[in-house]
């Protein structure tokens, strides 16, 4: 059943509506009383989660007798952003994932954020799906703040992702949806996969299979599930960043999620006017490329790749 869980009037004859599709199981077993939330669309240019939500809704609705509990799907918590290909909330300066937990006394966006938190709070697990941005392509991965790692890693391993990145805490991240929910007792996992403004079917199906595996492990799904892959779990020190030092167009010469040796050629930054190669980009360490630049134009500082390996692999 689709319900509007947060809303506000827009200027001309329209309301912003944040919708939740609640799918309630009809299993014959003793009710699990459990609830899992799938949230996506915080950033309007990240669309991979749209297909995951659609697939989940389709499969669950066709197999309600195999679901024991509630799955709440929130496909677009920034509906105006998605509708207008805008990363943030149109006419609002702050990133939506920097205003949680929100407040009823704040701006419209902060009021909506507070309503979203209120609606999700108390769920057994929440999965917040992101898809990088238009510049970078990410292998399916779970990102976990180190302060929640012990509690969340076991659940992250169920999600059929390739990689779990446990990153260090930062004050600025305390205003994300995931942080706000985790500190108030609702376990929330952040998924990053694919690239902005696109749907990568293969990744979406991979994560969807992982979500069913999670439901199975929580005793909420009696249907068959695929065997999930064993992710690599990695801390901050084992991730190496590769940034461009020159400006131009970046042309890669490696594939995504491949093994790479230290010093191996990742790609070139080329001057589009002269054709001259202005930077030969090489791997600073041995490892696997889990982030690779998708958008070709680069400035000095543009992120080219992230390599899982880093110091730990030297």
């Amino acid at each position: 059943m689709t319900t509007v869980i947060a809303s506000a009037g827009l200027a001309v004859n329209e309301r912003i509506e944040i919708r939740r599709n609640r799918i309630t199981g009809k299993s014959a077993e003793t009710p699990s009383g459990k609830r899992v939330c799938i949230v996506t669309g915080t950033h309007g240019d990240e669309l991979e989660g749209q297909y995951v939500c659609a697939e989940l809704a389709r499969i669950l609705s066709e197999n309600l007798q195999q679901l024991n509990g509630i799955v709440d799907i929130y496909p677009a918590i920034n509906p105006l952003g998605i509708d207008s290909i805008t990363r943030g909330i149109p006419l609002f300066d702050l990133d939506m994932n920097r205003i949680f937990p929100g407040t009823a006394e704040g701006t419209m966006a902060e009021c909506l954020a507070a309503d979203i938190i209120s609606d999700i709070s108390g769920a057994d697990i929440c999965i917040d799906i992101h898809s990088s941005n238009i510049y970078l392509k990410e292998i399916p991965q779970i990102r976990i703040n180190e302060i929640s790692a012990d509690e969340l890693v076991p659940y992250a391993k169920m999600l059929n992702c390739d990689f779990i990145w446990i990153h260090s805490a930062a004050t600025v991240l305390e205003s994300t949806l995931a942080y706000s929910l985790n500190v108030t007792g609702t376990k929330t996992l952040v998924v990053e996969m694919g690239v902005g403004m696109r749907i990568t079917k293969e990744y979406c199906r991979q994560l969807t299979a992982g979500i069913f595996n999670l439901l199975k492990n929580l005793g909420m799904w009696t249907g068959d599930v695929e065997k999930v892959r064993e992710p690599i779990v990695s801390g901050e020190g084992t991730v190496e960043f590769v940034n461009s030092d020159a400006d131009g167009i970046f042309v890669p010469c490696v594939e995504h999620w491949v093994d790479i040796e230290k010093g191996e050629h990742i790609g070139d930054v080329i001057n589009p006017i002269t054709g001259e190669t202005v930077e030969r980009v090489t791997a600073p360490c041995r490892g696997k490329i889990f982030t690779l630049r998708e958008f070709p134009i680069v400035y000095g500082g543009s992120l080219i790749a992230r390599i899982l390996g880093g110091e730990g692999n030297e």
Partner: protein
Amino acid sequence: MNKQVVYSIQSPYRQPMDVIGFKFGKGEKALCVVGAMRGNEVQQMYVCSQLVSRLKELERDGCICEGKEIMIIPCVNYYSMNIGKRFWTMDNTDINRMFPGYELGETTQRIADGLFKELQGYTYGVQLASFYQQGDFLPHVKLMKTGFTSNELMKDFGLPYAFVRTPRPYDTTTLNYNWQVWGTNAFSLYTNATDNPDENSAKTAVDAIIRFMVKRGILKTRVGSGYLTEVISEDRLYQIQSASAGICRSFVKTGDEVKCGDLLCELTDPLEGCVIAKIFSPVNGIVFFRFNRPLEYEKSVLYKIIRL
């Protein structure tokens, strides 16, 4: 005056973006002013340009105290300003959410890093800021409460109001916050404009900064004494949200004194023209902030009133 490039970045398709700083006087790093970090902060750049103009005259007349150096950076992000964009041209990130920066990081982290290296070591720092909520403000000075800078210093600007803000997580990557953490007494100065230069409030801001420099022993010149500044915390601001969406017709402006029950604005249905809501002041006070877009959403913050 010494005009110099304090940071430069290359683009594949444009001339280099050279961030220009103007230095006056010689000696210890006394005060630095940073203007537009966002592409629409025309007023913030304008205030700095007027300050540069005034300081040229003051330096010529020997008014800069011995052993004091002042730096003014009118515009950091003119790449965005030249194409009518508020945030960074390519990835839409906000330089003022990237401090202290990272020299090996993303482009705007590198800009923040390069700039911040130049900004460190000043005793006082002033950022001409704009706010994420669009509207008119009474000119004021604001201090992020970090424990590093004294509230009392704000009185030396001689503006009517000085605010102390308790930082939120997203404030911790701003220039103001990091400036303080790295040992500079840092303030944000707000005028009542952003996208369009406003002569009067620009003059107010320039006078306030000159006054501050005189009181802190950086300049020797005659300047009006300004206001007896009232330092107030943000919880004295009464925030009024809109109960409906529509076209807002305001009957008060910033600086007006209002009494509890006074009509502040009417909200009109944008299609039918009828008045759908009237907003009355729930408190006695001074209008400090007024929403200034013609169309407003439900729950927009329409006014902030300093309670008397």
